[in-house]
């Protein structure tokens, strides 16, 4: 049965069972309709739809969602079916950001903390200032005038002034001059990130760039430049005006090339993997070769290896690191953020991980809107679509699996972030950088994901019962035997989770009961001690 809520452009598809055992009804919910809290749970965002068949007057619509779910709707009545199909089509391909759901969403929860103000650069800098005074906060990009994809304030070496930064920006792709990504308190080594230098074929150089990079080294120390492209690709980039740091001009730095794939190669990998996961045929051989052919786990291994290398340079070799690829908005961020998870226990807490996502992905200018437009069921023609952020989350899951007691959050937390990066009622992942977000006035017009997540009732779902703070560096294994397919995302809709949930529940109960007993014993002990002291007096 089809019901329309009237008025203009609906953005939600809602399936609702009116009565227990009754037939579900389909709603297309308008932007301006107030959506009751209960119904919200079933909303979903489409990636692609197909009309499968018409049998008699029964039409079937198959909706393929960005969270990889596939929904089949059998709709009585040809006309209704066609109407719904065209509505879904129109709604899932909105061309204006401001028509999207976050602009119409009204929160049904009490806002305790405004997530838009939860992770400000000033707070981050304050933390840094407490351990070192070699860095400063620069407002050079206040009006996004120097680098359109950078946030208004960035952390740079104290000894380099804004005038020099301006010159460095001219020498770097997209003006993404080197900025601080991470400071390793243990030994004072740092990780910086940037885009490629614009050396071109005739080996252009920039004194200020060399000075800036060297300013991050302690006297007599050396550093590593991790280029996320193969040497070949980096060399080819020179023909287009890009390039890499020449050893002669950066004598204190050693360059290491890693090969992390980009754009359509990653997107095709995701499409192939999801196809393989949805294949219900019963042939073991084809499954393994399909998994292999998707190359997804190869990408995971490459990214993790590069991140481990960066972390190793910093922690083991006592060297500072500069990471970049071409634009410095994709593989660069995968490497810098994963290295921080390996090195910094703070990034393994819920709050710390959120802060990492804000710093290293949102503020750092990862173009979420371009990369996370269609997900796995896209037709492959989206030039800028790529599962860069999903790969990052998958790598975090791999580390979480190897260190199940060292993370404050659980797998559900990562899956939640995956979903919201692709489709959300919150404005957090809209836009491609801070510049666009500021123009869209997102903090004023939309709700932040963090406002919703960081409430105790939501946080409870994302807490890892096994968490025991681990202040150490955690070194994951990147051997093929140690890497697995992330079932929680890729087989989520194809596997029954009842027994897994039951086991998880049991795990929580074991730990909860232990804590309760501890509290009881503690209380009794105190009581006894008091009574016995009284006794003596």
């Amino acid at each position, binding site marked *: 049965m089809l019901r329309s809520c009237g008025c203009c452009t609906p953005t939600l598809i809602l399936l609702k069972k009116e009565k227990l055992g009754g037939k579900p009804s389909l709603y297309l919910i308008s932007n301006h309709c107030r959506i009751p809290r209960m119904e919200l749970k079933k909303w979903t965002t489409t990636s692609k739809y197909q009309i499968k068949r018409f049998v008699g007057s029964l039409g079937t619509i198959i909706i393929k969602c960005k969270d990889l779910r596939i929904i089949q709707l059998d709709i009585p009545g040809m006309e209704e079916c066609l109407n719904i199909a065209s509505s879904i089509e129109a709604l899932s391909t909105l061309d204006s950001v401001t028509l999207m759901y976050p602009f119409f969403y009204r929160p049904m929860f009490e806002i305790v903390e405004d997530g838009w103000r939860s992770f400000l650069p000033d707070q981050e800098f304050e933390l840094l200032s407490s351990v070192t005074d070699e860095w400063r906060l620069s407002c050079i990009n206040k009006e996004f005038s120097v680098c359109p994809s950078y946030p208004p304030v960035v952390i740079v070496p104290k000894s380099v002034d804004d005038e020099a930064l301006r010159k460095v920006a001219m020498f770097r792709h997209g003006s993404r001059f080197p900025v601080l990504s991470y400071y390793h308190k243990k030994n004072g080594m740092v990780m910086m990130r940037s885009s490629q230098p614009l050396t071109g074929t005739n080996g252009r150089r920039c004194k200020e760039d060399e000075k800036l990079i060297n300013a991050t080294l302690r006297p007599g120390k050396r550093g590593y430049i991790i280029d996320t492209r193969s040497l070949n690709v980096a060399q080819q980039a020179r023909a287009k005006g890009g390039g890499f740091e020449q050893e002669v001009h950066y004598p204190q730095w050693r360059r290491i090339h890693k090969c992390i794939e980009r754009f359509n190669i990653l997107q095709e990998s995701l499409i192939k993997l999801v196809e393989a996961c949805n294949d219900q045929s*019963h042939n073991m*051989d084809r499954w393994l070769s399909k998994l292999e052919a998707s190359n997804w786990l190869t990408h995971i291994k490459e990214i993790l290896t590069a991140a481990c290398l960066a972390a190793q340079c910093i922690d083991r070799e006592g060297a500072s690191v500069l990471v970049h690829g071409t634009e410095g908005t994709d593989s660069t961020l995968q490497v810098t953020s994963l290295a921080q998870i390996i090195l910094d226990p703070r990034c393994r807490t819920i709050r710390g991980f959120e802060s990492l996502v804000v710093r290293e992905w949102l503020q750092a200018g990862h173009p979420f809107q371009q990369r996370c437009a269609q997900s796995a069921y896209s037709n492959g023609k989206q030039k800028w679509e790529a599962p860069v952020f999903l790969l990052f989350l998958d790598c975090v899951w791999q580390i979480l699996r190897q260190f199940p*007691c060292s993370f404050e959050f659980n797998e559900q937390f990562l899956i939640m972030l995956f979903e919201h990066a692709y489709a959300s009622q919150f404005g957090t992942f809209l836009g491609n950088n801070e510049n666009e977000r500021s123009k869209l006035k997102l903090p004023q017009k939309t709700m932040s994901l963090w406002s919703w997540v960081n409430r105790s009732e939501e946080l409870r779902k994302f807490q890892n019962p096994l968490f025991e703070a*681990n202040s150490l560096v955690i070194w994951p294994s990147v051997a093929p035997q140690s890497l697995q397919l992330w079932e929680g995302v890729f087989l989520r809709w194809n596997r029954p989770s009842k027994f897994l949930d039951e086991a998880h529940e049991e795990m929580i109960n*074991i730990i909860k009961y232990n804590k309760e007993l501890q509290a009881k014993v503690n209380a009794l002990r105190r009581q006894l001690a008091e009574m016995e002291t009284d006794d003596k007096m």
Partner: protein
Amino acid sequence: MEHIRMPKVENVRLLDRLSSRKAALGTLYLTATHVIFVENGSETRKETWVLHSQISSIEKQATTATGCPLLIRCKNFQVIQLVIPQERDCHDIYISLIRLARPVKYEELYCFSFNPKLDKEEREQGWKLIDLNEEYNRMGIPNNYWQISDVNRDYGVCDSYPTEVYVPKSATAHIIVGSSKFRSRRRFPALSYFCKDNNASICRSSQPLSGFSARCLEDEQMLQAIRKANPGGDFIYVVDTRPKLNAIANRAAGKGYENEDNYSNIKFQFIGIENIHVMRNSLQKMLEVCELKSPSMSDFLWGLENSGWLKHIKAIMDAGIFIAKAVAEEGVSVLVHCSDGWDRTAQVCSVASLLLDPYYRTVKGFMVLIEKDWVSFGHKFNHRIQERTYSLWAHLWKNRADYLNPLYRSDHSQTQGTLHPQMAPCNFLYKFWSGMYNRFEKGLHPRQSVTDYLMAVKEETQQLEEELGILQERLANLQKSQLDNDKDKSKQQDQSKQLGLFNSSNSLANTPQEYSSDLKSFPSRSPSQGDEEDSALILTQDNLKSSDPDLSANSDQESGVEDLSCRSPSGGGCLPSEDSGKDSDEAVFLAV
């Protein structure tokens, strides 16, 4: 002892498979039962023990400048790489081990010299721990349809069957003997599992000697008796677990499979599981993949697929699921066979039993299952062996705490009734069991074990429960004594004792370091794994040399997880130079 040409060799190096640069120097001992490698080093006396009969193959490789390499592959998938300085010593060790690893008499086996210091009575008790008659009683047998038969007393009918077998009541000795003559190695149909809820059963046998047209009345009567023992079933499934082609080929040798036309009310079904020769090759290929040095993801997945191992696992699972479904859902009895009925048949019957009956998913029940489907229906050792050796089951049962799953609860829905595993390949997944096949390469496994963590929590919970009881009792006493206004000094002593107990368990829970040290197999702290090198580090070992010796010294002060990777000794050397060729820039990092 006469086979030991060389009892001790010094300055032997034990190589780490994951990192060719790392080796432990020590002394190699050959004893009558074990190869023992003792690492030099005063602080921790690290030892590696390998039982002779655990050795699967020994390979002497070409002598190099550093010595003569000896590769020992074990049946438990451990691979030990030794380098012995002198070629002659290596040869002597090699010759000795070849002999020691291949006992020619049962009496040479370790189990005959193993002495756990139990008295005769304890040993006999150990052998009685698993009692199959008790197990059949648990299934509800004997009953109106099934009885125990002594037709095979003194192994008179079939020398690879147990002396006591369970058969349909209507199957007379005449029928059994007649049927046995029509079956390979005389392995006639006998009961493996009985489902008392619906009287459906799983029986097992070897292939019939049907050739192209041979028949046997008694064998046909035997199958009919099995069907009649299940009043609710109109027919029985006969499941041949071989690929159809293999079964057909067997007909030429006078063997084969049941012709549906000759047996009344059977449904015949092939479920193609490959034979032991194919399986052995497959395992070999898979182990080769496991032994690859830093394989790429593609190498690994391609090698895994090419080995066919998971395909075989899936075939066995599919067969087990088919049978469990027939029994539980259709209420139809099943007769399972392959060729001899002791390999694939054992696999399939035990998987089906495991899916059907929650009892087999307990520690004791799983031992019973292996005894029932594998040991008793295989070749039976002479009973006299029990007088001179000890039972494995008693040993495992004594240490059962090591094998418990902390999440198991007998009241969970998954603990009840039949299990229905998902069998589409993507659900079944490529689940390479690295805990088994790469068991000795700890660096590949998760660094923290959820199981160990939960077991420690549960253990602590138990202590807390006990303490809570004591505290409550003391509180009650104290309240009583206060009422009586009776000040008993002796209680103070009591108190201090209790506080001690509490403190120890409290620190166990609140400080992670203390907690993990309590978890013996916690990788972060386990001494046996302390020198594991991280694979990520190994990838880069050649390129990155520590330029700051203070830092690597630092790392030793750290504890916990990081220990895994921090002890890699990095020697001298300098940063790789771009001038030394473009390759050096990428070579090692890109090798992955």
